[in-house]
């Protein structure tokens, strides 16, 4: 089901999914009917920027600027998009 992620693609959170910071867990989570996924720091940073407006390229550039010391970050970000789209947490707009 997973299509290739292009830098010009724009994604939004899938319907019926909610993304929020959980104070008690000190992490971001995605909530959906009868489930939740706890996101580690990097995954949370990516999903936080998925807003139906920014392109994948915008998000990659923004994260590279925000985390200049992180290496090979682009592949990780694209991998996260692929996973999140494959799990239907996000959808292409």
């Amino acid at each position, binding site marked *: 089901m997973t299509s290739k992620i292009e830098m010009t693609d724009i994604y939004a959170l899938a319907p019926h999914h909610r993304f929020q910071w959980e104070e008690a867990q000190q992490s971001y989570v995605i909530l959906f009917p009868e489930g939740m996924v*706890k996101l580690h720091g990097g995954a949370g940073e990516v999903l936080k920027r998925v807003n139906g407006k920014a392109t994948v390229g915008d998000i990659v550039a923004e994260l590279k600027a925000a985390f200049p010391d992180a290496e090979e970050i682009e592949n990780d970000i694209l991998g996260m998009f692929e996973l999140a789209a494959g799990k239907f947490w996000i959808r292409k707009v």
Partner: protein
Amino acid sequence: MTQNSLGDSVVQKTVQAQNNGVAATATHTQPLWLLAEITYRCPLHCAFCYNPTDYDKHTQNELSTEQWIKTLREARKLGAIQLGISGGEPLLRDDIEEIVAEAHKLGYYSNLITSGVGLTEKRIQAFKDGGLDHIQLSMHDITEEINNFITNTKTFELKKKVAAMIKSHGYPMVLNVVIHRYNIGHMKEILEMAEALGADYIELANTQYYGWSLINRNQLMPSKEQVEEAERITNEYRAKSGSKMKVFFVVPDYFADRPKKCMNGWGEVFMIVTANGDVLPCHSARVLPNMKFPNVKDDELGWSWKDSPAFNKYRGDSWMKEPCRNCAEKEKDLGGCRCQAFLLTGDAETADPVCSLSPHHHIIEKAIEDAKNPQLQAQPIIFRNDKNSKKVISGELEERTKEFHALP
């Protein structure tokens, strides 16, 4: 509802998510899932209901709206995030709108678990305005005959109308179908019906035997062959259906070699608050002997979860006996279900008899054989209703409860 339908899938998904590398390690000390069993009153009388058979004791002492709101606030501070509003039929209370709105303000992802009876345009609009996130509707069969028979009510047409109402208000459609002898032969048709109704999720929850379903076990249990066929049809449907409908098939534990990791572990992620305010680590925990469960009327919720003797009793594995104690697989299932172990063997600390390594496994084998016995099958179903609950309490139905070590 069945036990498994309420929560196991959440945990399974959380755990799966941890395995795919996205999630950090599990936080095993927070009641991530709060189930509010807000009333035991119910207009349906389902033969497979997991509610306690003596529920009639708790229809007059329900928590007030204020007590529920206080409970929601305290649980949220402990980390609760998924909220199930269940029952009985929650819509029999007229304060669900208020509770839903408060849950939304607190940041819960909230789910109304309903038979659909009592859901009107006015109420669903109020839930939408209040921020309810989804509605899980129980369906029973593709045929009016079996729907009405197993629920002991005429609710077939109503459920279809409610499904359409849920859809038209933009809610995800989550259907729950409890599977038993009377509908297991209609798996393909049930899946097609769900698809036609526009379901986003369907849970095919094989009956697990607690509460009313335990005393009706001989009347409800399908054969192993029927279960295998149902699973085959479900897998076939998943493989060929191009739809986005997610299908969950909850395997019945009686036909498995190993027990389920009940509630994903005692006091690990689930907290249930019952209609009268009891705080439980699992739906049927009150069957266990020598246990005093906390109650929100008397006890602070943080203490109940973290420090109460009841919630600590079966946390971890130090309570285990052989063959669990030294079993290589003990972390996988934590010895199974304590309630099932006690109800069927009289020992709450022994292995769940579902396990083929259990010295009591013959009890499960006998139950499977009994369910094939035409004479036992022919005993009447005891439907879940107030009259029958009173009879259970008074001992009038002892014939059907006596083989169990506590009232189911």
